[in-house]
């Protein structure tokens, strides 16, 4: 079906998107690479000449570098784990017959519409504040000492906030996948008297694997860039500095564009490692 002619047409149709994205990738990438080899300090007069690989070594040997990688992975991993596990459970529940399913679905997807800045502000101030937050009121009502969320449980707090925002997304995709599950197959196994757990493990979960992969892929892309939630809540203190937050500090707080750009290059490398990793699993899962 794909003739020589249609191939050429296809290429033309694809061109605008590819060229635009190539530009969007290459222009900043080239500039980042250029700056990363420069001693570029705006507050000291701008371009102070070439720096060789100094920015790269300095960024990597800074005591914050490896912890920031670890923090990034913990946040991405933690949120993925929570959203996938609870997403599956919630999707299973929502798939069951009940009254007012439409309204429940509306309630569940609502967090997805909230701006990250707003949700971080609301959670931090109105829920997790150790004096005036709702959690503090609740803890005190039971005679417990309120948790100082942002300092004592900083990473879990951020993971909770981000998971709250992304749980709806995971749930919805998984729900659509569950709904497409062949009813007869399930029924047959029900007749056979297979216990619920077994049914879940051998029929439902394999069916969901594709949807789970998609959830992991799309969410990872967004989670690597998590920023507002950290900026608003802890400002990078208490071990919540992710790689992108560290770059932010170098670029905007220290005003060291060269150093920040070198960090940007590391972030691109990290993203690509994760991308290749994802492609291995996702690509395989999506192909068949």
């Amino acid at each position, binding site marked *: 079906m*794909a003739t020589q002619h249609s191939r050429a047409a296809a290429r033309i149709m*694809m061109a*605008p*998107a*590819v060229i635009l*994205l190539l530009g969007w990738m290459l*222009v*900043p*990438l080239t500039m*980042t690479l250029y700056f990363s080899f420069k001693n570029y300090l705006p507050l000291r007069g701008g371009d102070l000449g070439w720096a060789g690989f100094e920015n790269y070594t300095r960024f990597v040997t800074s005591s914050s570098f490896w912890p920031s990688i670890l923090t990034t992975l913990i946040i991405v991993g933690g949120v993925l784990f929570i959203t996938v596990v609870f997403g599956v459970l919630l999707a299973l*529940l929502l798939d*069951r*017959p009940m*009254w*007012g399913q439409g309204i429940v*679905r*509306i*309630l*569940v*997807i609502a*967090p*997805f519409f909230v*701006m990250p*800045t*707003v*949700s971080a502000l*609301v959670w931090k*101030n*109105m*829920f997790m504040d150790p004096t005036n937050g*709702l959690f503090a009121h609740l803890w005190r009502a039971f005679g417990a000492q309120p948790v100082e969320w942002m300092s004592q449980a900083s990473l879990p707090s951020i993971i909770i906030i981000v998971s709250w925002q992304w749980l709806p*997304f995971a749930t*919805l995709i998984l729900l*659509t*996948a569950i709904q497409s599950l062949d009813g007869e197959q399930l029924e047959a196994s029900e007749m056979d008297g297979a216990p619920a757990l077994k049914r879940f493990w051998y029929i439902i979960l394999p069916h969901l694997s*594709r*949807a789970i*992969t*998609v959830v992991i892929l*799309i969410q990872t*892309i*967004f989670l*690597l*860039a998590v*920023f507002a939630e950290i900026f608003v809540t802890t400002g990078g203190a208490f071990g919540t500095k992710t*790689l*992108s937050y560290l770059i932010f500090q170098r*670029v*905007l707080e220290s005003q060291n*564009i060269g150093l*920040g750009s070198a*960090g*940007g290059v590391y*972030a691109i490398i990290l*993203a*690509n490692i994760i*991308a290749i990793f994802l492609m291995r699993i996702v*690509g395989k899962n*999506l*192909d068949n």
Partner: protein
Amino acid sequence: MARTVTTRQKALNTTLAWAIGLLIFFPILWTILTSFKTEGQAISDPPIFLFFDWTLENYAIVQERSDYLRFLTNSVIIAVGSTLLGIVVAVPAAWSMAFVPSKRTKDILMWMLSTKMLPAVGVLYPIYLLFIKLGLLDNRWGLVVVLMLINLPIIVWMLYTYFKEIPGEILEAARMDGATLREEILYILTPMAVPGIASTILLNVILAWNEAFWTLNLTAAKAAPLTAFIASYSSPEGLFYAKLSAASTMAIAPILIMGWFSQKQLVRGLTFGAVK
């Protein structure tokens, strides 16, 4: 649906689902409630849920301080504009990927997605300098283009998965019947693709609406959307929970309402090819 369900089971499901649904929704509900309280009531211990003196004072203060409609207009233009522009660019690309696939289609898709992994702060300076050169600083159309580029990979990906589900045989059958390419696109493909395009538009309007890095850093007064509106209420001096809640409610209400009304559309399309 031959599965028989007892009323008891259904009641149990309902209770559990409603409880979880309300729990997930609670932070938003609480924000909306707080926006109608006075600052004092907003922090009172024990917290007051419904029986407080409902007041619109906070909304009045917020409106007096910032021109909500201007921020709203900018948000709408940026979110809708970038999405529509993205659709225009992405439809042909997704189309050709779905119907004339080559060995590299998957790689191109993955590459497109990987451009989203660039950390935005790392390229703030380059982009800012570029925007100055092009005179696009604090310009809505500049942001429309940037947000279009940011979301383009997602748009292409979503459209691709929808188009792929359209069976090729239908096209061939139409061609046999003597349909021209124009007729083929207009009468056969478009109607089949509309639900997919609709949910793509919805999802991307949401993503663009909530984007808070570029929209904040590339604007000043003229093009600032609701994300900048929020940044002026985030932690002012003194008690601020009620005012923050009012501003938050104003910032999320339009998109929340849109989302709720189009919920069915959105849900139907949100598969990303996860369902075969």
